[in-house]
């Protein structure tokens, strides 16, 4: 167990530093317009990369995953709350897996 403590400490440290340093340092720096635009585009870019193609392997079947994804898009488009989006998508995938 002692050797695991060393491993965990190392892992914790190298995970925490990339989270902490930009937050502490950048909050004191005023970015140029270019880098402000860059930051503005990070969320849609990152979300897109997080979603695809990972979503295809999210559940046991690609079709169930696509059904769940489509449900989420529709509900979000019509401004349902995030919790509703998540819960109804889970339900859709559950029903879909039941059917196929």
């Amino acid at each position, binding site marked *: 167990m002692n050797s695991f403590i060393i491993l965990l400490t190392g892992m914790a440290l190298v995970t925490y530093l990339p989270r902490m340093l930009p937050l502490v340092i950048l909050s004191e720096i005023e970015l140029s317009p270019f880098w402000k635009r860059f930051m*503005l585009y990070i969320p849609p870019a990152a979300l897109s990369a997080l979603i695809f193609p990972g979503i295809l392997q*999210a559940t046991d079947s690609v079709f169930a995953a696509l059904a769940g994804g489509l449900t989420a898009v529709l509900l979000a488009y019509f401004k349902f709350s995030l919790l509703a989006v998540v819960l109804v998508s889970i339900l859709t995938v559950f029903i879909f897996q039941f059917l196929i």
Partner: protein
Amino acid sequence: MSDKTIIEKQSRPGKYHFQRGLRDGLPVAIGYLPIAVTFGVISRTAGLPSLAAVLMSLLVFAGASQFVAVELIAAGAAFPGIVATTFFVNLRHILMSATVSEKLPGLSRGWLAMLAFGITDESFSLLATDRRHRLPAFYVLGVILLPYLAWTAGSAAGVVLGGQLPGMLESSMEIALYAMFLGLIVPEIKSSSSKLKVALIALALSSLISWNPLHNISQGWRITLSTVGAAFLGAVIFTGDDKDE
């Protein structure tokens, strides 16, 4: 707006923001549960001591890297190698943390150092797409608290249960985080055509990297490269004002 509402808005107590944060973080917590349980189950089969598995969730709190670490431990990899891999898998948080920092001006270093621990793909998605320009510290604290508890408690449950959950329910719940990402990206790209284009560029890059026949690139690097590439192109191409409608 009357004077009274202005004062109320300015002096809303931390408790109000904290509770709103808890509520907004709930979908993330729900999404984490099945993944955390799976992590607990896998780390037990990999021969990791129960306490070490739970401690890893408590101290590291970064899903993908924990799965990779457990795989490496099972394969008998040396610890320095595992730490180095963890570093690279989690390096993408630099981008996310930098983006979130834009929304936390004027916070003390102590606050920032504490909140930084809770920056994950999911909390970043929530915080970065928030319509407000400035987020109260207590709100951020609320957002990251329930997911953290769910991640740790789920890992412990997985270690104890050891794969006794009904597979179909667990498999259904794994859509949760993707549903949340979709729920966050849709309003973003609906309101701005340049953000939509950036999202499509990132989608194309991510698919290209994922399905290229030459190199097997890890998931962490795929996300980082597509994000940086698409955001950079966006910043170069879309220089005009793209007002949110």
